[in-house]
């Protein structure tokens, strides 16, 4: 009950706050491409990220300069393609006396789904030279057509696909004003369905969208009619956005068999919103896409875990990669001349987006009558084997250098440790031997980041 009361108060506060601001209705058209990213997949095989079209129309209502709501309608087609693997040994006791390599099923299973979708999103805008915005909310999907192939789910009957779905949508983007009422926009969205897309499977819809669009703002007064003092209020002056990118060097912080694992490099890309509390002290949050994981290079019966027993044995050169949307909550201290140095620390929350095992493995097999070396190109989905979230702590430091007067360039070094074992032992134990289930993955990452802080509009 308290939750609803708090929500109501927040809503009234937003409305009251918006009373002093000329409210704007924004509409826009967009078009782009989606890349499929299925959810709920089992271990093994590769779900290819296939491109598909997306286009739509939206209608937004700005409650004030930074908050608003948005809805609309879009049409998209999502294509899925799967190359399955058949790891008999992983589904049966490892003690089977089988020394030959495992084989991927070379068959390809395809599905596609066409939707009409209606999002309902809460939006946050950070005004700057290039306006930054974030959206999050629900999306309702209505299936218009679909096709399945190869009986992957033991039935190709069209009727088994769910006709409706709802899910979550997270979106972020930038807009660049062409004139007072028209903006060019670029948005990246992440969509995930909540219902099983087929009756007999655990799979759920998922995709990432990259769209370009044009916004048109109604009911917006000309710039000269607006009191500049209202355009950028004092609070917003203390908010900046930093776009960051860099490299994550990550490894597995487990205790056993440490020497068998090494680091893996992955991208880190995102933004942070900096709320200056007082000079030299700020609060930082945001979202970044980060690839964590580790690599393994040794003889093993498993491709993602060092396992020196069972058959067949491989020489494995593979990486476990886990993609996260990382939300940090950092306290940042700046010091030195012009606050050039900074140190920040705080917790982080990681939402798993994807996980996979990639690399190569060589199996050497010999008898009196043959000698073979088999190369396996590994790509196995590990999504179900990795827990959905991880939390941890960040320690970061770096320098922030003024650049072209209005900008700042950050060079940051960040150590990021996860508190949990993200290997989902329960799921693994259901499917595989205890030897495989007995594993730990603890995220450890050092990030080398470069960022640029863009000033607010009007500055």
């Amino acid at each position, binding site marked *: 009950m308290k939750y609803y009361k708090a929500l109501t108060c927040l809503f009234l506060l937003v409305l009251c706050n918006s009373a002093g601001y000329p409210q704007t209705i924004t509409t826009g058209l967009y078009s782009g491409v989606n890349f499929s990213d299925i959810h709920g997949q089992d271990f093994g095989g590769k779900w290819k990220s296939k491109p598909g079209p997306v286009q739509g129309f939206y209608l937004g209502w700005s409650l004030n300069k930074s908050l608003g709501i948005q809805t609309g309608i879009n049409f998209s087609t999502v294509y899925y393609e799967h190359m399955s693997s058949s790891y008999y040994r992983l589904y049966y006791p490892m003690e089977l006396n089988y020394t030959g390599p495992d084989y991927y099923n070379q068959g390809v299973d395809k599905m596609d789904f066409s939707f009409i979708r209606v999002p309902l999103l809460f939006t946050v805008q950070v005004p700057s030279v290039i306006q930054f915005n974030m959206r999050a909310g629900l999306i309702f999907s209505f299936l218009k057509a679909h096709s399945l192939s190869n009986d992957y789910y033991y039935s190709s009957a069209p009727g088994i696909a769910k006709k409706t779905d709802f899910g979550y949508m997270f979106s972020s983007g930038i807009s660049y004003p062409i004139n007072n009422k028209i903006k060019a926009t670029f948005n990246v969205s992440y969509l995930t369905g909540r219902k099983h897309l087929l009756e007999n499977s655990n799979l759920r819809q998922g995709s990432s969208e990259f769209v370009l669009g044009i916004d048109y703002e109604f009911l917006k007064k000309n710039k000269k009619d607006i009191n500049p003092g209202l355009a950028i209020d004092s609070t917003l002056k203390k908010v900046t956005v930093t776009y960051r990118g860099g490299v994550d060097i990550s490894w597995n912080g487990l205790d056993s068999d440490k020497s068998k694992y090494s680091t893996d490099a992955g991208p880190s890309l995102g933004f942070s919103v900096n709320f200056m509390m007082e000079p030299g002290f700020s609060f930082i949050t945001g979202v970044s896409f980060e690839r964590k994981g580790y690599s393994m290079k040794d003889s093993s019966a498993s491709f993602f875990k060092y396992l020196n027993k069972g058959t067949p044995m491989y020489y494995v050169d593979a990486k476990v990669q886990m993609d996260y949307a990382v939300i940090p909550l950092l306290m940042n201290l700046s010091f030195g001349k012009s606050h050039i140095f900074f140190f920040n620390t705080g917790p982080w929350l990681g939402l798993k987006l994807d996980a996979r095992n990639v690399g190569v493995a060589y199996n050497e097999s*010999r008898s009196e009558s043959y000698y*073979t070396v088999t190369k396996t190109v590994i790509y196995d989905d590990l999504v179900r084997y990795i827990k959905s979230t991880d939390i941890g702590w960040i320690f970061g430091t770096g320098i922030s250098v003024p650049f072209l007067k209005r900008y700042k360039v950050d060079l940051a070094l960040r150590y990021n440790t996860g508190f949990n074992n993200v290997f989902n032992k329960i799921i693994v134990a259901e499917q595989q031997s205890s030897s495989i289930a007995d594993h730990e993955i603890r995220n450890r990452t050092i990030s080398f980041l*470069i960022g640029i802080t863009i000033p607010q509009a009007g500055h």
Partner: protein
Amino acid sequence: MRKPFFLIAILCVALSCDRYPDPSVKSVKDYSFSFQTSQAMKFLAGEWVSDSVRFSAVNYINPVNDSVKVDFEIVTGGGKITNQSVYTDKNGLAYTGWKLGSGSFEQILRAKSYDLSGNFLSSTDLIEYGFRNDEWDAYPGSPDGNISEMVADTVNKVTFMIANSKLYKQGERYFKWDEIIDPVVNSPRTINIDKTGTMYISTWNGELVRSTNHGESWNTCSKPYPDRPYYFYIDLSNDNYIWVFAWDHRSRYSKDGGNTWIEVGGDVSLLGYGDHVRLKDGSILFNCQNYCSLYRSFDEGQTWTKIVTLDLPIKLYVDDEDKIFVVTEAMSLYMSTDYGTTFTIVQELYPSWISSGFCFTFNKWGKFYYICVPGFGILKSTNLSNPDSYSEYYKNNNLNNLFIDHNGVLIGKELQGTTVYYRKNSKK
């Protein structure tokens, strides 16, 4: 302002564009190895297997350009080879000569294969057998590994055996066997030979065939049980009588080489099968093996008198002096010199295990008796009645049967398994 932006964008895009190849499995090295010279051939020790033993190493990935280095070595048996290290030719073949030694019966030539970088690929063995004098040579192959019956005609120098329900004749060498295909001999089960050299084969179909010309040709006898298309038990007594038994019939015998059959009298004829011996006084001694009892008949098998023994007899043997020897269920060898009135123990036998399938055999070659004691091995004796003349000749717990061919080669057979043991003695 734009340059750093682009740098960041390029860096991130470059890292993000980690395009993974599709999963796949393929062979990057694939060889097969084999000796094209036949395995498990039989030779005399010291013979050449071939002056050109052929070894094949096939590279399936790069068959034309790649060669394989092959190192030949003798693992067991001694002997010698002509080439120790060779490269395969364009057909993937490497050759060496191989002469067997006499260090062991099973002789192994090994080919170790290496690629051109010197990486070891595989080790392949060629196993051949070299038969030696005065040694027990255990041959695990067929058909002799499945021998069930054997007869030897020492006068006409022929030996026949039955293995896998087929008839074989011993070839030029004692370990070579040639299958005899004769339309009269179908599914042979047993083979016996009488004192005249006439051989009899009983079949799984209830037929009886005979050969009076040392196995050159075979003729059908009259069926002992005309209405019965199944096998029967057969025993040839030392007076050339043929004794037969079937579970649903009385015992019968033929004294004219299987032309006519006479039914055995009394209840004994229903008891079972066993050994029959004509004693010098004209009586017939019968050891019913499945009933473990000893009987004697004075009227050509019409009535029988049970002989009381100290234990249950399971094997009967009578020597040329009418001394009766019986092996009993308690694994003792008894002797009677008074036609079974009294028995004295000659030997205690000590098999390491007991089976109902045990087949005690008494063989005489030259001046020696060879007694096969299943579960123990072979005892040798010069005088069966003298306990001190017995000696352990061959200790082999697996042995169950012993045959002697027309040249005096001892051939032992396991109860289970398919190994046959040959021993050719150089001293007669």
